[in-house]
């Protein structure tokens, strides 16, 4: 027994020694810090989004990298908690990351000050502080996709179109998850309610977002909303779809924000047939019909492996590809502008601010990121659940950008 234990310890020591000599990757690699939530309340997103990110980086590396330099995406999971996110930020910094893909609204709030101090750009696509679109006030935070304010205005614009061109006297219900991320669009929606003349009522769903029967009943039968804007995430959107169907509210009068809009949510609600008519807002293209996705499948075929099953969940997977692609573009811009090939966070920040007209075959909206506007224009697309799959309803658009700009300015002055 004793000899077995000694032998085991010796083997472990030898293994550690052997591993100590294995050094990671080439010296000229560029490190991207990726945070993920594969185990946590939003794991439904993380388990699909992060493979998308990695696959795009793998595709870029297989084609020779960016300007000849290979990329390395270092992923650390943080279970949607803040202390592991802070620790992963420090780890990424230690590994020399020049850019961070942050994940989670409380995480981007917690890291905002550190990112600015350490001068490393961090992206928060589709979540996080909407005021961070102001590139002057928050130079190192990049929403790079429609923030909750832009999503709110886009939803109201869509509702206006669906209700015949005018919202005067109509009733719109806003059902949301009762936390800061969920309450963010409220001030913009109230502003639009005053200017467009519609009646807006809020329906808060307490965390963890699985009980909303009373709110849905209220929306459908007491308030009798003409349109419902749904801002739920995690497991809540599927519950909302089921509840709305149960009270008989037509799903074609409902639009979900970007995190209530994936195949996984629809399937959890009972499948595409059950959720027929539900409108979803997207900040990345949906479906498998994009050249970059074909290239990724090619890459896997060349390696002799089947395409990963995460590709079937196209909404979140494509978002992962979008985020990776924007990081890569920023790095490309930084490398092109750098004379000796050495880039720091500041260079990548400048690289982000040069991104314009990069659409990756339609997967990425035609964002225009400038030093003043880190959001890129707040562009979204609307897709509808129809006939067993998602069908595109509108092309990229942004609505009421003046209202959003006004709120950003107001937030910056505080």
């Amino acid at each position: 027994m004793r000899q077995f234990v000694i032998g085991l310890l010796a083997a472990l020591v030898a293994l550690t020694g052997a591993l100590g000599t294995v050094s990671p990757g080439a010296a000229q690699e560029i490190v991207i810090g990726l945070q993920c939530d594969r185990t946590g309340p939003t794991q439904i997103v993380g388990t699909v989004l992060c493979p998308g990110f990695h696959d795009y980086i793998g595709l870029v590396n297989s084609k020779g990298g960016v300007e000849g330099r290979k990329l390395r995406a270092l992923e650390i999971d943080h279970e949607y908690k803040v202390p592991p996110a802070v620790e992963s930020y420090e780890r990424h910094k230690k590994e020399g990351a020049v850019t961070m893909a942050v994940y989670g609204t409380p995480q981007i709030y917690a890291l905002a000050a550190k990112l600015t101090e350490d001068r490393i750009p961090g992206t928060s696509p589709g979540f996080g502080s909407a005021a961070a679109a102001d590139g002057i006030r928050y130079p190192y935070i990049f929403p790079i996709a429609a923030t909750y304010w832009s999503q709110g205005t886009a939803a109201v614009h869509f509702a206006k179109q669906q209700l015949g061109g005018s919202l005067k006297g109509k009733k719109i219900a806003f059902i949301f998850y009762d936390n800061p991320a969920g309450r963010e669009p409220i001030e913009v929606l109230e502003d639009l309610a005053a200017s467009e003349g519609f009646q807006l009522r809020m329906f808060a769903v307490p965390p963890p977002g699985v009980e909303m029967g009373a709110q849905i009943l209220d929306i459908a039968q007491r308030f009798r909303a003409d349109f419902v804007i749904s801002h739920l995430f995690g497991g809540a959107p599927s519950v909302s779809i089921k509840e709305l169907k149960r009270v008989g509210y037509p799903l074609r009068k409902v639009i979900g924000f970007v995190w209530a809009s994936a195949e996984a949510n629809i399937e959890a609600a009972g499948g595409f047939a059950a959720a027929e008519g539900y409108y979803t807002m997207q900040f990345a293209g949906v479906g498998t019909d994009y050249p970059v996705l074909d290239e990724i499948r090619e890459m896997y075929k060349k390696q002799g492996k089947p395409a990963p099953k995460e590709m079937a969940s196209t909404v979140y997977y494509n978002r992962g590809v979008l985020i990776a692609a924007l990081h890569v573009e920023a790095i490309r811009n930084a490398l092109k502008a750098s004379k000796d090939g050495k880039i720091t966070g500041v260079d990548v920040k400048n690289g982000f601010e040069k991104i314009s007209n990069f659409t990756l075959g339609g997967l990425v909206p035609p964002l225009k990121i400038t030093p003043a506007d880190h959001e890129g224009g707040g562009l979204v697309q609307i897709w509808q659940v129809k006939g067993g799959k998602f069908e595109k309803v509108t092309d990229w658009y942004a609505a009421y950008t003046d209202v959003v700009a006004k709120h950003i300015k107001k937030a910056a002055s505080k």
Partner: protein
Amino acid sequence: MIQRECGVLKTSYEADMALYPLPIAKWTVAILAVLFFAVIPLSLHEYYLSIANLVWIAVIGALGLNILVGYTGQVSIGHGAFMSVGAYTAANLATRLDSPWPVNLLAGGLMAAAVGAVVGIPSLRIKGLYLAIATLAGQLIIEWTINHVTFISGGVQASIEVPRPRLGTMVLSSQRDMYFFLLVFVVLAIVGTMNLVRSRVGRAFIAIRDQDIAAEIIGIDIFRYKLLAFAISSFYAGMTGVLYTYFLGIANYEQFQIGVSIDYLAMIIIGGLGSVLGSIFGAIFVTLLPIVIRLGMEAFGGLFLPQQVVLNLIPNLRLMMFGALIVFFLIVEPDGLNRLWRNIRSYFRIWPFAY
């Protein structure tokens, strides 16, 4: 043989009342002080210092919770909420009144103590599991209040940025500065707790934990001491919240939700209820374990499995191993890491003899 308890003669009351009367204890404390004040901060990379900072913050919180749960026997799941009370008090004072950090620290602690005393009022009537549910209600109510009262939360985002603490003209911004800043408070907290539990108040707490009816009979005002326990424990929690806010630079109640309360309970249960060293061990263990598991998986996992599978496996395995190790430790030593350490210590006390 190593630890000599005989031949240590004291000639003054101060020497008799010292926290560490034995020479070996004095030497150990001196060596640890040198290690933590000089060797570690000057030799480790900033990343490891950031982990150490997280550990120090957890130590203070765990000490506070152990005073309440370990020494007074009042189960509380509201620790996270008291931290957020302290954090938001300090953040509001810092941004509205521009007050310096000592004022914020004290105010945060006192406000949390007041709120803690209020949440602790049910402890007069209920004990054990029922008190746990009552404190859980306190946790959720405080969360909801902060979320919805914009005066406290500073807006819809419920996040308040605080400026970095300044010491004269020096701004404490790097992890190394933070390390020393936090270490001072950790030392104060440890010494304070060690003195508290051997004082009159501490003995009253222990009496309440062991036999509260007998304690009441012999004249200990248990309502007053229970409230005091809640207040002191919440003061520690408030301090933890304020220090955490200064560490991150931002106060956000989502960092102090019920998961955090459960984490701290896990820390003191694994470390050992009712001991200062146990709180420290537990805090170190629970904070470092996920990081160590991840480092281990990253080092070893690449050998056996392809990269994508490893990435998906690491977080899930981390959660599983975390739970498994907690269960394992509690089976091996139900009284926690503190008892494990005491067993090792008493073995070496009479080494090389067996008894």
